[in-house]
């Protein structure tokens, strides 16, 4: 009796970081696999550079129609930095980070709620705001781990291969990739937290990502449609050629703004709504 009474004395709520630690523990294997996949694909493309890059690339580009070069974002592909940006940062790296971030964003609240596993956490002595913010932090941390692993792999590989890619360029591209993946992942996360519907959240965020890619490539091709790329988060990310020209603060700022707006709106809705209906 006395032991229980003692146990009951004082109220104890969740210390900061408990939700975050739980999510990271739960996602640890997924994160490692995604990081390996991303490093593998990034390294593979970069390793092809000596056999396709430089002068050989110039010959190939001459044979391609200029519209296709624009559409594929190959304008700067002949330089080492341009090559890594076009193949890794603009294409497969971006796709992998996006798929991971949007999928995870949809799972972290809406998916957990649909599976029923969120119920005990919401019923625990932790506020909804804390649950929301720490789960969102987990998303950004996972994206950071992926991008950091990719950056490390590319830095090592380009220096071993003697490719002329500045480390600052890689860092600028990686910061953009983190913000791009984080922003669209946050969109999925926020939509999921606001509605509790994972399919809707992932579908909408994926549609926004696809549309943003289309807008970024149609913009320069269609006359008088430069506004298109201005609306595209993808253009905000790669429009400034970060690997060659460094950080494009305007575009990166817009990515961050998108994330903040989505996060705030989603958080407000999540605090207010019914869970598990």
């Amino acid at each position: 009796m006395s032991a229980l009474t003692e146990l009951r004395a004082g109220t104890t709520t969740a210390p900061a970081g408990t939700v975050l630690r739980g999510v990271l523990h739960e996602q640890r294997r997924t994160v490692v696999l995604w990081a390996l996949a991303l490093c593998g694909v990034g390294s593979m493309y970069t390793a092809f550079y000596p056999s396709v890059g430089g002068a050989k690339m110039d010959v190939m580009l001459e044979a391609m129609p200029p519209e296709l070069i624009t559409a594929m974002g190959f304008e700067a592909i002949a330089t080492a930095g341009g090559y890594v940006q076009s193949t890794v940062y603009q294409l497969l790296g971006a796709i992998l980070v996006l798929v991971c971030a949007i999928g995870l964003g949809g799972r972290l609240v809406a998916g957990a709620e649909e599976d029923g596993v969120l119920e005990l956490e919401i019923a625990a002595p932790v506020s909804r705001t804390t649950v929301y913010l720490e789960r969102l932090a987990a998303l950004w941390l996972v994206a950071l781990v992926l991008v950091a692993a990719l950056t490390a792999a590319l830095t090592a590989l380009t220096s071993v291969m003697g490719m002329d890619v500045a480390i600052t360029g890689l860092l600028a591209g990686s910061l953009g990739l983190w913000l791009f993946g984080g922003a669209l992942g946050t969109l999925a996360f926020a939509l999921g937290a606001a509605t509790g519907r994972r399919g809707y959240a992932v579908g909408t965020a994926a549609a926004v990502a696809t549309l943003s890619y289309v807008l970024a490539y149609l913009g320069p091709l269609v006359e008088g449609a430069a506004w298109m790329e201005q609306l595209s988060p993808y253009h905000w990310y790669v429009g400034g050629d970060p690997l060659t020209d460094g950080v494009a603060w305007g575009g990166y700022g817009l990515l961050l703004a998108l994330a903040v707006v989505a996060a705030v709106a989603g958080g407000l809705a999540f605090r207010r709504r019914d869970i598990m209906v």
Partner: protein
Amino acid sequence: MTPAIRTSGLVKDYGRVRALHGLDLEVSTGEVFGFLGPNGAGKSTTIRLLLDLLRPTAGTVEVLGEAPAVGGPALRARLGYLPGELALPPRTTAGEYLRHLAALRGGRGTARIGELAERFALDLSRDLRALSKGNKQKVGLVQAFMHAPELLVLDEPTSGLDPLLQHEFRRLAQEAAADGATIFLSSHVLQEVEQVAGRVAIIRAGVVVDVDDVATLRRRAGQRVLLQLDAAVDATALHRMAGVTDVVVDGTTVTCLLHGEPTELLRWAAPHRVVRWQAEDRELEDLFMDFYRTVPADGAAGPADAPTAATAGHGAAKGGVR
């Protein structure tokens, strides 16, 4: 004294569907209170309103004197909750998950995980995904009880547990109650709550239709009695007998509903030769039928008897388990 739970005119809508139609409920501190109703009556909705998972459409809820949305984490620190449909995350062992849930309570309850797991014979090193329904329910019970909360809200606590573990659950609940905890437990089976609960509320279609202590409820539920005699009899005396209703004579077989003591009925039967005697506790469903039967005379041999065959068989099976 502040009641542990008080709801007044509680209404909850899911879109256009109204799940609760003005629910009034009061549970005193230290009480073991049963919350009975068929599936879909609004039990889980009520419980989720207590935990602030849902927000009321109208009316008020108070848990330990505070509205759940106002009390927030500090209020929930004083509660233990077992969901009706417990879902556990994959890729984690039972022990890891329970320690995480204790960490969400600032570490409170960690010390009791081992002891409670032992009582329920729960293997803490097992992966949650590999657990059977009964073992998952054990994880749910351990996390609800481990921090010795002031108020336990248990949604169908014994579902999936075998009789031995149901017994262990009842002991645990009684210990918690003896220690001053209030226990609010829901069920759709009267037997599940009658051994632990003092009072019971019956909810039907989103309203509380009755609140009573268990003994009264049991008396009201009554028993279905079947008497098979060796020759046809005159059963007119039964129609006037106190506590006996719904008398049906079919050749040599007499069936009736008995509320209260069986003495009079036994006296009536004694002069005859009784070939077979059967008395079964009625199911909660039958009790609900009673609440709907406004004019008792009409029901005597009417459609109210239709579900008897099915429930009698069901009741017999239940009786064997007890």
